[in-house]
């Protein structure tokens, strides 16, 4: 469980987070959204103790981040950064992914097994002996992802995981994230990608100018046009469509393509049967 209690944070006297209160239960799926500079990255850096609150506290499974080292917290909370180029340094993708496992002192046999498994899952198996610097942007991003997921942390925090991924990889990423979540991991993603959020169906926390603007299920939040615009986002396309058809009795909180399709289908069929 991740508990954030009355968290304030300042960089050199410049306050960027104001009174944040969040409780994230084990196995929850959360999306943190908000405009550029809202403080999302700053907030998630508190989850593994990289940043310590200026005021208030953050508890990971009941332990305050002030009382634990980043190394010990990072075994529980896997944090993947926005830009993969900030962490790639090894000669091969295999070594890169094995790095955290080596830091945690796992036996070599376990490391090999886990690394191969995660490379397989993220479609990187064929690059195991390639230099990470030779890969494309999207592939580097997946290597960074693999290098955290390899140690199987209980809570997974991803900063902008979909940036630079083509549609197919995004789909795979979604499936993988959802799968980890159904296996009981807590998943927290930071993203601007509303369509991705609609497909993942998480609980959404809207952050704006360092404060929490709203918190709730994805369809509830993302169909609220006013709220969404205040966080510099645009409602998903289907949401815009359904809300423009509001007068015809469609539900603007329908964000999912298939739900929208069946609603429209039902209406069309009933119109057809009326005219017959």
């Amino acid at each position, binding site marked *: 469980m991740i508990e954030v209690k009355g968290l304030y944070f300042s960089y050199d006297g410049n306050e960027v987070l104001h009174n944040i209160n969040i409780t994230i239960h084990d196995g929850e799926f959360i999306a943190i959204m908000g405009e550029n500079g809202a403080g999302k990255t700053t907030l998630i*850096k508190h989850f*593994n103790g*990289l940043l310590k609150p200026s005021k208030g506290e953050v508890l990971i499974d009941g332990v305050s981040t002030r009382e634990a*080292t*980043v*190394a010990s917290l*990072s*075994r529980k909370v*896997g*944090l*993947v*950064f926005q*830009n993969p*180029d*900030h*962490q*790639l*340094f090894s000669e091969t993708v295999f070594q890169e992914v094995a*790095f*955290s496992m080596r*830091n*945690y002192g796992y036996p070599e046999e376990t490391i090999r097994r886990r690394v191969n498994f995660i490379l397989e899952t993220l479609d990187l198996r064929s690059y195991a002996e390639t230099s990470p*610097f030779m890969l494309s942007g999207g592939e580097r991003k997946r290597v960074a992802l693999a*290098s*955290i997921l390899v*140690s199987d942390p209980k809570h997974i925090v991803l900063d902008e995981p979909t940036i630079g991924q083509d549609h197919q990889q995004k789909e795979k990423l979604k499936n993988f994230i959802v799968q980890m979540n159904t296996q009981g991991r807590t998943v927290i993603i930071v993203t601007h990608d509303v369509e991705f959020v609609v497909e993942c169906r998480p609980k959404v926390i809207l952050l704006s100018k360092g404060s929490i603007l709203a918190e709730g299920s994805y369809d509830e939040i993302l169909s609220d046009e006013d709220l969404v615009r205040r966080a510099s986002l645009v409602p998903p396309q289907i949401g815009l469509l359904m809300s423009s058809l509001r007068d015809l009795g469609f539900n603007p909180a329908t964000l999912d393509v298939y739900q929208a399709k069946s609603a429209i289908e039902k209406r069309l069929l009933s119109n057809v049967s009326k005219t017959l």
Partner: protein
Amino acid sequence: MSLKLFEGFRFTGKRTPIHRMDPRPKLLIASSIFLLSILFTNIIVLLILLIAQLPLIYLAKSLRRWSNSLRGGAVLATLIFIMNFLTGSTLVFSLSMTLRFLVLISAFSLFFLTTSPDDLGLVLERLHLPYTLSFTFTTAVRLVPTVALEAQTIVDAQRSRGLELDRGNIIERLRRHIPILIPLIVSAIRRSTELAEALESRAFGSCENRESLITLSMKWTDYFVAIATIIILLVGIFVRLWIPLPSLDESIRLPSIWV
């Protein structure tokens, strides 16, 4: 954290007499302090050189940033002290060398804290440095904060992968910095290539004689400061050459088994 060192050299625009000063006398002050600290090994002189900067730094409202640069240099300063003392220098001499290093850091911290990269570029141009050289230098200065921020992010990313920088002996600790240094160097190279491409696509260097929109002009206060600095420098050189100073060197050193 050694990143504090960068903070202590990063220009921040403020409205103070020191910030408003023409960059040339400021460069003169920093260079004179540099020269004097090289000329003297006497600990009292070095102490005076350090303390004499305090009023200027106070005037520039930069005490906190300046102390950051000293704190950032503390590790290296300690190393300098230990190296000197261990290799058989006297206690006072080791302290002097450490102090000399701090004086240097402090002098250039004061200069860079209060001089914008633009001003710096103008000075270098006035010194008739080729434009490509002065541009390279000012760009490097301008990039310091960006690189510092990037270094912090890299440290954060690697710590999130279980890297513990401050564990083990000195060799082990240095080895643990490899995962920080490689991404930092790689991204610096990548950035410079991108910058070069961007510059070339904007016709950098296509014209021989550049003209500057802003020209530097010295006020009478600037002349006054410059002349005062030169006099102090000359007095310093005079004292160094012809006036013997009392030495505090008590010959306290480690027993020679260390040497």
